[in-house]
């Protein structure tokens, strides 16, 4: 059954008739063309679909779209300001944290939620923070390095 749904995504209002069974991931990708959020396992195991809901990282494949209407949703498309990359994005590019890049948007979003909460983390905390997101390429070291570098950049900017 379709119903009119209204979302606040990256500070913009999106409104459409949507089947009530649809997940947030499906709606982001299929209804709103926000393709930076990736569908990997589609069951909450890989983290490639991570987005922020009210600043908290969630697997968008496990969230019913209807349940997050009116909440502030942030996707990878909402991080950079024009051509100016977010410090987390810069750090990921600079440290080799990206190989195939399929996990990258999810990794960056989970890092955002983490660093907003914990701006001066230890490496161990950074490692734990990304542990719900799989990456098959990098072996994680350079991602952890990116998280630490991003934290430093963000502290400097703040």
């Amino acid at each position: 059954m379709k119903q009119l749904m209204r979302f606040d995504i990256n500070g913009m209002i999106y409104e459409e008739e949507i089947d009530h069974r649809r997940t947030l991931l499906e709606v982001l990708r299929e209804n709103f063309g926000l393709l930076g959020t990736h569908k990997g396992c589609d069951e909450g195991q890989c983290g490639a679909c991570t987005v922020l809901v009210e600043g908290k990282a969630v697997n968008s494949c496990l969230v019913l779209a209807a349940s997050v209407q009116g909440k502030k949703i942030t996707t990878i498309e909402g991080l950079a300001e024009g051509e100016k990359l977010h410090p987390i994005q810069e750090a990921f590019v600079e440290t080799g944290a990206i190989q195939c890049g399929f996990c990258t948007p999810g990794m960056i979003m989970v890092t955002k939620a983490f660093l907003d909460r914990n701006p001066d983390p230890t490496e161990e905390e950074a490692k734990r923070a990304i542990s719900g997101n799989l990456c098959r390429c990098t072996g994680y070291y350079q991602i952890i390095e990116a998280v630490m570098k991003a934290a430093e950049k963000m502290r400097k900017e703040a």
Partner: protein
Amino acid sequence: MKEELSVVGKGIPRVDGVLKATGKAVYGADFSLPGMLYGKILRSTVPHAKILNIDTSKALKLPGVRAIITGRDFPWGLKYGFTAFTRDQTPLAQDKVRYIGDEVAAVAAISEDIAEEALDLIKVEYEELPAVFDPFEAMKEGAPQLHDHVKNNISASHHSVIGDMEQGFRESDHVREDEFTTQAIKHGFLEPHACVGLWDQSGKATLWANKQSPYIVNRKLAMALGLPPSKVRVIQTYVGAGFGSARSDPFALDFCALMLSKKTGKPVKFVYTMEDVLVMGEMRHPFYLRTKTGMTKDGYLKAIQVYAVADGGAYSTIGPVSIALPGVSIDTPYRVPNIKYDGYRVFTNKGFCGSLRGHCVAQLRWALGQQLDMMCNDLGLDFAEVSIKNAVQPGDETPSGRKITSCAFTECIEKAVEVSGWKEKKGKLPPFRGIGMGTSAMITGARLSGHNSASCVVMMVEDGTASVLTGATDVGQGSSTIISQIVAEVLGLRIEDITINPGVDTECTPVDPGTYGSRVSFYSGNAAKIAAEDAKRQLAEVAAKLTGVSPEEIVFKDRMVFPRNSKEKGWKIDALIRHAQHRMGKESKSIIGRGSYDSGIDLLDLKTGKGNISATYTFITDVAEVEVDPETGKIRTLNAVSAHDVGKTLNPVLCAGQLYGGWLQAEGQLLFEHLIRDEKDGHVQNPSFMDYKMPTSMDIPLRSEHILVESIDPEGPFGAKEVAEGASLATFPAFGNAVFDAIGVRITDLPITPEKVLKAIKRKKEESSKT
């Protein structure tokens, strides 16, 4: 005078990094066309059966369904495969199904949901046949036969004897024979297969897909669709990782997207689920290995004999290569005068196996590297010292004909010893802590049959930049960046001056064999270098005319082109390109450099195993230090040391990423990854990331040290060799040896689960209490 390098060798961020970090890279499932339909595949529910009838009438009546196809919709009897002898696959099953998951029919509908619903309405009538799931059972007389033309289910075999085995073992003071096994694992890429197919009215079949080797897809699609390759166009999207032939081959979705498009006149999109990916081929071959090594008492290897049985699953894919590779990898990285190999790849009613990072060599290293450690322990020798004694050296030609050119293997061992603290730790660690060493060699591009050369085009653009067209595919390993660095270096440009095609389009990029055998930096890198040099030569001729010196005197540096001894006479490169293009009268021309590269080595003789399979080889030494929890059996890696002879480090950040990633991928297989099969019908019991576990950030070694050793290869671009596939090979024996060092029991069957460790510790305790 040796010129200082300004772009090559630097840790330049990958050229597609910003696109990927902002979510703008278009992967397989991100690509769409207006008006497209959605496809779904129906898979076999039985392991082995004749298809008697497929009734699609009910499904066709479902509103929204536009077409349904079965094996009958493809050219009947037209099969595809790697060689003429191994063509045994069809887009959809024609006569038989051979494993639970084999593709039987496909639906196109106006939505994925409707297509899915239609699958439930298709009735397939099977006549079930006896099935076989164990390769040893399958080889017996009277076992169920998967393919009519193949006796005893031997999909491929490889036999070679080089030297005199009897003499080799006679000269040995110590001989051991041991058994090892490995399990099935998946490539584990996070992006499921996805494609859009469009068969247009002109008769051209175009496929957009996340492929690692688009030209392999192009050729195999053409083969099974009965089209000339020029009528099939494959356009590569960004690829959510590769690691082997599961990304290089076309699968049912690719054929069906095109055929359903032909039937409906609409583009058709398929996106597989992760369950599809985990159930279907391809995956790593599970191996049984019986190895026999002979050594003198002072540690010189005299003979190695290997008997291998690989479970190939239902189809051949690149089976002849798969089963040859362990055989041709025995006499590196150590000098072994006498070798014998008997390998069998066997059909079973399970998903088919193919290449995966270190294709069938990882399994061999798991066995031989542990056996060497056993021999050393038996004789009271040090693994590192024995490795140095037997190490192949530059200039060696191995008994089977591998020509070792650049080789820093000894240096790799020495560096790994030093960095890991091997001498201080080996034999001196407290209980339940262990250290182990492993070694390997790796080919830099396998010389297979058929196409081997790589090509590249470098076009100079009037704003002083260069536009590169390569046939290489970047699946995350970083070839776009490496190739851009090489072109920038040759032309005196900066990395941001290079534009490179983000993917292959078989209609307009240079034809390329594909991304396999760790060949891309070497082959495509060389082609790019030659193309850039060709563009440079053309520009130098123009500059020479303008400045009155010979072209050889012209230097390209910092976006300037000038005579070596009078920089002030130089031209900005953009002005020079414009001059060449616009102002040379009848001689005006766009500057387009072309480059092709082939190593020129002979084909390996698959019958004898003799020949040089690769133009050059890399060498790797890993040291693992582990800690075992005797209460839980859980293993933690304290330190991971990898020393890799990469020839020349083209980009240290990218190289490091390969070493880190390769180690952890190996650790996944070593510790827990396992595609588990039901014993009665062979179906995959864990087709989900909930149950098929891969390493997370919590599984990484506590410390990790990568050492890039340079041997400057005479043939490689700027001296470079492979790094990607070799990165995981030495980890297998290193880890196994470390676990033995920690618990005093040898685990020979993968994965090394906590259960096995606990059992081993218990057994050890019982044995020692008896004595």
